[in-house]
């Protein structure tokens, strides 16, 4: 989901990220996404360059030549890293936080739940790119809505009436 308008101008600007989509900010916008169930939010932050990104992936691995790379953990993380580097980030300075990947239903809890696989593939991809994971709030059986503060790298998670900060 693309938004139209001027680039976020201040840390108070919020930018909404849809499913199978990502956003990158170089000026401290708050990136938000809501209703993460089995989907996974991958938050990347380069403190030195002041660049942050949030991607909302739906599935772990992409087929060949996917029409939308942001839909998948394996292709989406690279696409967002590239977009962050275009804004001045350096992969070596990027750190990650993960939220989502729950198993909401019994029918999605047996033989490799989607959420669990999303988390596993994201961890593998981040490890491969040398991006350390600072914090995770994954799994469980509740949905999450998240706000990723581009300026500070703080991740606020709302889930089942609770609020957590990572």
């Amino acid at each position, binding site marked *: 989901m693309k*938004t*139209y308008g*001027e680039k976020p101008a201040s840390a108070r600007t919020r930018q909404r990220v849809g*499913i199978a989509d990502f956003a990158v900010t170089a000026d401290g916008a708050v990136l938000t996404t809501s*209703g993460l169930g089995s989907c996974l939010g991958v938050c990347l932050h380069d403190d030195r360059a002041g660049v942050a990104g949030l991607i909302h992936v*739906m599935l772990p691995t992409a087929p060949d030549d996917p*029409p939308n790379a942001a839909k998948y953990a394996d292709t989406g993380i690279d696409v967002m890293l590239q977009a962050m580097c275009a804004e001045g980030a350096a992969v070596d300075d990027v750190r990650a936080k993960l939220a989502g990947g729950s198993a*909401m239903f019994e029918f999605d809890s047996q033989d490799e739940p989607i959420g669990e696989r999303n988390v596993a593939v994201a961890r593998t991809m981040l490890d491969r790119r040398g991006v350390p994971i600072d914090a995770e709030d994954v799994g469980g059986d509740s949905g999450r809505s998240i706000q990723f503060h581009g300026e500070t790298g703080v991740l606020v998670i709302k889930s089942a009436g609770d609020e957590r900060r990572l």
Partner: protein
Amino acid sequence: MRVDIQSLGTYNRLAQEGAEHAAASLTQMTGIETYVDVTNVTLMSKRDVEDVFGGTEFVGVQIGLGGGLSGETALAFDRDSAASIVDVLVPGATAGTDDSFDEMARSGINEIGNIMMGGFVDGWADYLATSVDMTPPTYVERDGTDVLPNGTLDRAEEEHVFVFESQMTAVDEEIDAYIYMLPEYGAFAEMLEASDDHEDAIPMDKLTVFDEMTRQGAERAAENVSSMTGIETDVDVSRLSFVPIEDVPNTARDEVYLGTVMEFKGTPGGYLAILFDEPSARTIVDATVPMELDEPLGDMGESAIQEMGNIMTSGFIDGWANVLQTSIDHTPPELVRDLGTAILSPIAGRLGQSQEYAFLMDSTVVTPEGEFNCEIYAIPDEQKLKEALDSLLVERSDQLEANRESIF
């Protein structure tokens, strides 16, 4: 005729891109940041059209298309959204919510309509490698189905109509805009028509039967609610749409729902979610549990919703099984209480492993006094849906009509 699923997907993508151009034009002209929420293509009967558009008041423009793509389009705003846009676009024009829009306001709406629809249509013209002619915009300020291009209802009565719908929403304000495009049926059917040996093709007449099946399922579910609660209910909206799989979760609102979800197995396989928003859940519980319950709903309330979900599920499944003349196996409905998008995301994820687009059947059960509403989402597995439709005898559609009448 048979419909090529892949090409339906391509046209959906064109409509999505077109809507993004239109949203960009809106932002450029007004400075209001907007995004495209959902784009879908729906196959509607006359009754579906009346359900979806009835009872709402729109302000907007109608523009006819000719040349490489013939059909009708409408850009519609609800009154408040139109007033906000007029305020920005033509300061000084009368755009109060109770007064009617003056000449300046109308010409502002016409202008933005023309520009937005130009953006919407450009992508189609490029893809079809042809030029598309647009008629001058006609300003409309109407209720319900009247906002649709003339003749839509008549056409829908003769044969189902394809309706492309995109919703655009402002990021920080309460502004919604809708683009509707109704391609001329014959020409569009030719664009969609698959060659006989195309394995992804779905027979058109059977697809319309499936649309009716959904309505029948929803009606059975609604009857079961009525008999359990004593509250009169009706199916307000029931439609079959074709959406990119990643748009499925967005079809529920961004709020907390209570309800049940289950997987149905065999032919057709897929998922069924029956969801109540929180106030509606409260109403249901109050009507079915003969004692005062705590606020918010605790275990006892949740078990009442579970029970309601079970009963509606069996009604819905009966409706389908009746048309398919087969039994349908399913997992026990599971209770859920979460954000709508989170509830639908594992369903989209599981289906998304093998399909790019989903046939989404959504229905809304309401009561005449607005005591509650209940959203029913049925999302079949695409491959299993094809198998089910292949084994569905076309004569059964006549039988369906007979069954429908015997219900009322």
